[in-house]
């Protein structure tokens, strides 16, 4: 199965795949995650604080996003809206990934916010802090600490999910593997290779997670 030609294909493809991984997959992940984080914090805070009107809107958002496949969402925006408006594939990818993962992350964060003891908020009020001051300095940092493993999970899931961007004309790591396969016709070797690179990326993220968690615990953290 692995003859010299296959091996050559693997070796030749490696720098190209890695290049697309570092240049496209990683930035796509980072940008999507950053926006997803902003969405998640906003949505979770609105639901935590029971903001009338907005709270229902947030619930509908989470309901729709969690109830439809990511690939369908990508198609809907890129090909659906793209049919009528000019859309940029990178903007669509980042927006859809962020909106999608943001829904899941908002749920973990909401749970974490609600797990912060009420006494923390009361103590904040009693020393004279405002609601936003308490959120910013006390409740949100503690909730982010609690939600950290699950938020990191979302990051890892996003990294792998960016491979779906291949469906909307973005050449990222997986699409590049498809393209090389079109020339070399070594599907098993090439898709296995790209899988290993994804695995390596995710492993690095897992290591980083361990370092961060250790640090969070060292700084007292919330048990």
């Amino acid at each position, binding site marked *: 199965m692995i003859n010299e030609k296959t091996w050559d294909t693997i070796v030749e493809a490696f720098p190209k795949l890695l290049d697309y991984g570092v240049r496209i997959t990683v930035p796509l992940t980072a940008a999507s995650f950053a926006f997803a984080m902003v969405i998640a914090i906003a949505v979770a805070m609105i639901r935590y604080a029971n903001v009338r009107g907005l709270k229902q809107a947030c619930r509908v958002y989470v309901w729709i996003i969690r109830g439809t496949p990511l690939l369908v969402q990508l198609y809907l925006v890129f090909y659906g809206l793209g049919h009528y408006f000019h859309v940029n594939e990178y903007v669509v990818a980042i927006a859809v990934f962020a909106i999608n993962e943001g829904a899941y992350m908002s749920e973990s964060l909401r749970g974490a916010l609600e797990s912060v003891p009420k006494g923390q908020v009361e103590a904040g009020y009693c020393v*004279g802090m405002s609601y936003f001051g308490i959120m910013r300095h006390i409740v949100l940092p503690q909730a982010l600490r609690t939600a950290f493993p699950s938020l990191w999970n979302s990051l890892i899931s996003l990294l792998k999910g960016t491979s779906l961007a291949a469906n909307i004309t973005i050449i990222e790591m997986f699409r590049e593997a498809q393209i090389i396969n079109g020339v070399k016709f070594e599907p098993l070797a090439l898709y296995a290779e790209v899988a290993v690179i994804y695995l390596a990326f995710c492993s690095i993220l897992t290591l980083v997670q361990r370092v961060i968690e250790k640090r969070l615990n060292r700084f007292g953290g919330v048990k």
Partner: protein
Amino acid sequence: MLLEIKNVHKTFEGPEILKGIDLNVEKGDVVAILGPSGSGKTTFLRCLNFLERADSGEIVFDGVRCDLHTARKQQIAEIRRKTAFVFQNYNLFLNKTVLQNVTLGLTDTARKVPKQAAEETALKALEHVGMADKAKSYPNQLSGGQQQRVAIARALAVQPEIIYFDEPTSALDPELIGEVLAVMRRLADEGMTMLVVTHEMEFARNVSNKVVFMDGGRVIESGPSKEFFESPKQERSREFIRSILNKE
């Protein structure tokens, strides 16, 4: 009169917890609020700082009148600025160091104290409770007694006109109660006005100058501590003192 409290009522779904509580506090008073559990002591204290919204009632703080039911944000903030609260389970900010716990109330509130000045004040307050050497620790690295002393420093740092204590030693292991009571006794000696919900009879008798005995959402008896313990007027008070003394 520093604080006049009039006719506080509070109902949680169902029974009425507070059935009209009145209390007057002079500057420098140390008032112990006693009573069996479920008598409404804690709810009463929490109403004074708007941690619970009373159904009705009024306070006159330093000459400023404030309705406990209808008070607006601005009024609440004003009352809270003059007061501090020490909780049964300390409620130190878990993600902040000891020092930050004390400075937050100075820097990130309407007080707007510059950081450096706030840290000096905070360290002084921590020294006062014997916790300055733990300034860089996090709450969960401290014993309960130490946490409560930091909580008292946090209360002191904002220079309140009165400190409310809600059963400050009830969550502590017996061997840690003494260190917290010692700090409270020192504050009392220095003239700090304190309103203390407590089960510590020794504190009520020897440190506080006034006692309020509550039962069933009413004040049964109130007066100078000495009188209360030596010649209680109400049968219910006598019963309570007897039962406590028997336990001790």
